[in-house]
């Protein structure tokens, strides 16, 4: 599967985190349960896809585009 950023996933598609691009907020993402190997699914978008709402490990988070772009995933087919 081709790696892509979380932004490129459609609503409801599941992705597996394969990498995080290092940033000031990377630790915060990890603390919220987003790190290599976790599954993540966008559930709601705002108009410009910024921020987006994602479902990760049983709970839901909102992220800005900037944060979402730093999350590299591969799409996983159900």
């Amino acid at each position, binding site marked *: 599967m081709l790696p892509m950023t979380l932004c490129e996933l459609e609503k409801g598609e599941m992705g597996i985190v394969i990498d995080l691009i290092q940033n000031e907020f990377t630790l915060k993402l990890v603390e919220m349960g987003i790190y290599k190997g976790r599954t993540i699914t966008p559930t709601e978008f*705002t108009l*410009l896809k910024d*921020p987006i709402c994602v479902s990760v490990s049983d709970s839901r*988070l*909102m*992220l*800005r585009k900037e944060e979402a772009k730093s999350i590299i995933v591969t799409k996983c087919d159900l």
Partner: protein
Amino acid sequence: MERNIRNIFLIGNPNSGKSSLFNQLTGLNQKIANYPGVTTERKMGSFYLGKQEYELVDLPGCYSLYPNSIDEKVVINELLQNKPDLILFVADASNLYRSLLLYTQVADFNLPIAMVLNMVDELESKGEVVNASFLESELGCPVFLCNSKKRKGIDSIQKYIIGSDFHASMKIFGNKQLFSNYLSSSNLNYASWHEYVQGTPSNAIVENIKRIEVIERYNKIESIIALTVSKTQKAFNRQRFTEKLDKYLMHKYYGFIFLLLILYVVFQTLFTLAQFPMTWLDSGFGYMAHFINNLDSKSSWLTFISEAVIPGISGVLIFIPQIALLFLMNTFLEESGYMARIVFLLDNWMRRFGMSGKSVLPLLSGNACAIPAIASTKAIPTHKERLITILCIPFMTCSARLPVYTLLISIVIPLEFQGLSLLSLYALGVVFAMLFGWILNKNISSNEKSFLIMELPPYRLPSFKNIYINIKNAVVAFVKVAGKFIVTISIVLWFLASFGWQNQAIQKTNIETSFAASIGKTIEPAIKPLGYDWKIGVALVTSFAAREVFVSTLGMLYNIGEEATERTMIEKMKSQVYPQTQLPVFNLASGVSLLLFYAFALQCMSTLAAIKKETDTFKWAIISFLLMASLAYTSAFIAFQFLKKC
């Protein structure tokens, strides 16, 4: 002899029901102070079990011990500086995975700890059940199942506290070797690592260690959860319900319609409901002052009480209904979980003006009163966004401007345009708040990266007890802080307005020859280009402390008796003319000029005090005062000069 009070810390994630537990354990016996040096509130409460007194400290909710906001820094600072007798760790059972990250970090401080597993019913509704005794042995600390909103499980927690058989966790979750390059072997523990992290500027290697630490903890947590949580039959699924509701409430188009509807209802209720008690208080105090004055009209003490002290106290109490209702709405939006959706929907728009989604509610609260609104900006994590929000709030049309607006509008604006004018003034406030934010955003540099990573809690019904206690705390804080201030200013103003310099001595006099009048006449040349006479000048000076004083000062200056109704006041003010020209003082030009002046000038000492307190420097209070004053003067000047020719 020193009193032997036992100290208990309450630590947990945001939305874990920590505050409910705090309220259940302490009841109404709470006090809120500030942490030394930082502006974060320190929420404490004390309670007795048997003869032993306990002090419970409710630390701000956080996700880990590596802080992201001022609020979160408090938690690690308290852990490092004060050694509590016991830590009650509040975990949200329906979000155990995330709760345990913070738990394992706190447990590694090796302080006495016990876990309160809250919202077990929500976990069950997800079709899962947790085995408490397995969890106890996995965590190495006592675990209490609890539903803090319904008081379930509180008794067993109290029994445990009485027993005072507290001990640190039997387990250590972190991997010491991660820190071994930075700490001496005698000091190789988690607390020392945090001391090291606090004392050194962050760098890539340390950040990397933090990340590895968190992932290692999560790996352990996964195995703990696998051992302790098992699936059962599903009942009502709150998560599902929330997701379905969010399909509409967070929708990219419908979401805004619902948002507008909800905010409209919230603020409509706020204004309509607050009006009743405010009118009662106002007329009640009016009668009281009148009654006291009539007891003995020659006694200067009674005059002092009826003209200075009572208006001062009523000036404080009149705001209570609005503050109480504001906090009612605030707590309701927060506890129900809708607040996070407001942040989601509006973050993008707010960012263009240098703020974040978290600025929306403080700004809207500014429509009631800027003081609690400024205090509520603490949850905004980045310094720059928080600062801009604080500085924009005073532009919003607070309730103190309302009496000034309604009086002036009914004098100078034709009846058919009165409603529209009031609405435009509200819109003007919003537009300039945003414009100011946009300008500040371009001019304040910041190397701090702004981000928004926020949990969306499931929708929950707020508890009455929490709402009630929140309101009570807000009201008490307001009366204590702003109260002293407003009463003092009111007394000073009364002195200025009723004494003057006559025959080389300070004497009681009427307002025309008072100190206030000489101030008004001194500044008259400066305000003449705006279309004001010296009496309006006096009102401008006196209303510097609080805008609504404008109305009562003009009442005094134009000799309108105490029994005057609003109607007679309007008639009397309409009939005021300049002695030389016989032209009316209050015409469209001077009226609009005054309205603009009040829309922009930061005529509120308490707000300035709040800005100083929250930004921790006089700099921003002075800057915003000067900026808003010059904007007020310029716009009033342009409006008057332009309209006068029409």
